[in-house]
């Protein structure tokens, strides 16, 4: 593997460090950052490098952390507010939604702010496994990054730190340690541009965050059955790169959209709704949505694994889209 191989968290930290060197306005606010480098090593090593002023530990005051970020952004800074688990954003929701998201529209000024949170389902039970990417995608004024590779984590945080809009940056718990190649100082990843991870002719599988990875794995397995799947990683759930999906569906005529969050009201539904409209005459089968049942996440692994979609669920949905298998209750 290339010398640029590292974990998703390391790639994120590298991107932040590079931008902090480039731009003195960039700083990070959150808890357990300076000594520990964050609970997912997302800013590991930056404390010694940039000092307590720029790697700034705060009291457990999420509302104040985010408002401090918003106000600082309006006064010439480029803050990253690190919320630890994204679940703690609920205590700062007004600051995100009524302030950060709306200020450019109301006041015609840029709000260069990143709100980072660790998302997705893993251990931690109900209150530490909320899925909020669909919420933020529905809220005008925010961008939502959902990287599934180290390359994208670095490229997307760098773009966010050079942009002028608030970005909710979500890193999946199960992927912060994911290893892969990361780009160099100038490898930015744009917002609203999906990546075709695998090209195929039979069925299009769209995913984001961990489901992009699971979709790719499903495609590999489907190959054995002679199913040639095209896999698209949305990379950002807002903006949504619908054009790339449309082009693919025009080719395959079949679509599976996979998200880890509860199906009802999820990103997969938005993609399905838009594509059925744009590709009505191209679709040879209903669009299949892969997602979780409408339930909180329990503590016991024996239980939560039954709620969230896995690779087999994506495979099953693809077969269903190809009329190779009757729909079963998803997730099985």
């Amino acid at each position, binding site marked *: 593997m290339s010398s640029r191989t590292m974990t998703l968290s390391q790639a994120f930290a590298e991107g932040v460090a590079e931008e902090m060197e480039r731009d003195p306005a960039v700083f990070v606010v959150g808890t357990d950052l300076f000594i520990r480098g964050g609970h997912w090593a997302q800013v590991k090593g930056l404390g010694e490098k940039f000092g307590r002023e720029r790697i700034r530990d705060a009291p457990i005051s999420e*509302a104040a952390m985010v408002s401090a970020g*918003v*106000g*600082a952004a309006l006064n010439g800074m480029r803050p990253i507010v690190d919320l630890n688990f994204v679940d703690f954003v609920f205590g700062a929701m007004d600051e995100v939604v*009524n*302030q950060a998201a709306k200020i450019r529209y*109301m*006041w015609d000024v840029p709000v260069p702010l990143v709100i980072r949170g660790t998302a997705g389902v893993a251990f931690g039970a109900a209150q530490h496994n909320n899925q909020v990417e669909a919420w933020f995608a529905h809220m005008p004024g925010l961008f939502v990054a959902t990287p599934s590779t180290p390359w994208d984590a670095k490229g997307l945080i760098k773009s966010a730190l050079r942009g002028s809009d608030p970005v909710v940056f979500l890193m999946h718990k199960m992927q912060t340690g994911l290893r892969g190649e990361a780009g160099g100082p100038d490898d930015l990843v744009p917002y609203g541009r999906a990546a075709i991870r695998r090209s195929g002719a039979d069925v299009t599988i769209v995913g984001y965050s961990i489901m992009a990875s699971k979709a790719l794995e499903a495609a590999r397995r489907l190959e054995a059955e002679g199913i040639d799947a095209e896999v698209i990683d949305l990379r950002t759930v807002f903006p949504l790169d619908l054009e790339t999906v449309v082009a693919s569906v025009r080719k395959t005529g079949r679509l599976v959209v996979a998200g880890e969050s509860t199906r009802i009201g999820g990103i997969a539904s*938005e993609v399905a709704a838009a594509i059925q*409209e744009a590709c009505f005459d191209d679709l040879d089968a209903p669009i299949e949505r892969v997602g979780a049942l409408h339930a909180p996440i329990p503590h016991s692994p024996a239980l939560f694994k039954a709620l969230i979609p896995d690779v087999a669920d994506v495979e099953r949905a693809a077969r269903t889209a190809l009329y190779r298998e009757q729909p079963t209750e998803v997730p099985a």
Partner: protein
Amino acid sequence: NGGDPSGAQAAAATAAWAAGGEASARALSGRPTVTVVAAPPLDPDRPAWSESRKPGRGRRRYEVVGANLERPADDDELLALELGAHDRAAVAEWLEAMALIRVFEERAAPLARAGKIPGGMHSAAGQEAVAVGAVRALKPTDIVTSTHRSHHHSLAKGLEPAGIMAELYGKAGGVLGGRAGHLHLADFSIGLFGSNGIVGAGLGIATGAAVGAKLRGRDQVAVGFFGDGGANTGRTWENVNLAAMWELPLIAICENNLYAVETHLTAVVSNVTIADRAAGFGLHAVQVDGQDVVAVHDVVAEARERALGGGGPTFVEARTYRYSGHTVDDPETYREADEVETWRRARDPLVRAARALEAAGALEQGGLDAVLARAEETVAAAIEFAESSPWPDPATAADGVYGIEVNLEGKP
């Protein structure tokens, strides 16, 4: 023994405890022991603003500045205010500024009731001295954030009456093209970092702006206004605590006008004052007569010095009063009309400043009328401008949500 007459000592003990050092106020062993953290009375004759002091060392709870901060009694006459050493011409300009606010609010109110100002408005008539006294103690580069009651702060900070009035109308000529309205007035070019429709949120933005000022090493303070009602939201205390911890150049000004819509202060503040709450967070706290423009000015000027001297933030509870209802079409079933009359007679901030200027020979007898007349002209012109300003182009309604081109339709 456990008796501890000095809050400073207790604070030191706390610090020692936290830091692991010897306790300065360690009690004799053997319980029970009861200690109380307390502060000695200050010399009442020492001016509040002339001595330099360390912030929030806990030695005192908070200062009280002003001749009389009690609510006026029914038979009270107008309370005098003292000009102190201030340049009379400066105070005269403050009076002009207060008069502009008063007239703006009084002329705008009926326009809101008539539907000319969509969604109504919150009038700040009666609270002019807080806005003018505070903002006149700042440099133009300093930052101010405001609340739903936004006109007095905005006018004091230098926003043009015509641009405000047109904004209230929702017209293209408004300072923000009619998008923001009276809840969201802002002009970053003059340091007005927005008035906010969410109670307490403006203080948060001021706190963040103070973070920026500190990290950038700017000679700049941020003032966040909020109301007595705003002193009940958690975000207010999170931001006050953050400012105290980070020693931010923040001045948090609570305009305590006794009411949050129809909820009276005593229904939501238990046994203590709002300044008392603030003192509990370890920053310097002051209670000031908000109807005395000079007192407010002096307290904020001192707070600015303190902040820029590295002394950290200051919390100011300004006791004031709103003459209008919560909104200008508030039925006001929750207070007696003569309560308003008493405040007008005994505490009116314009009349108090005018009387003091007259006494000092800096304003001719009855000179306030001329001041108000000039304000009437300005406001009339502002209304004229708003009336004649065109409506914004509906085609622009979705412009500027993002800094880059984005599909807002959800259709490829």
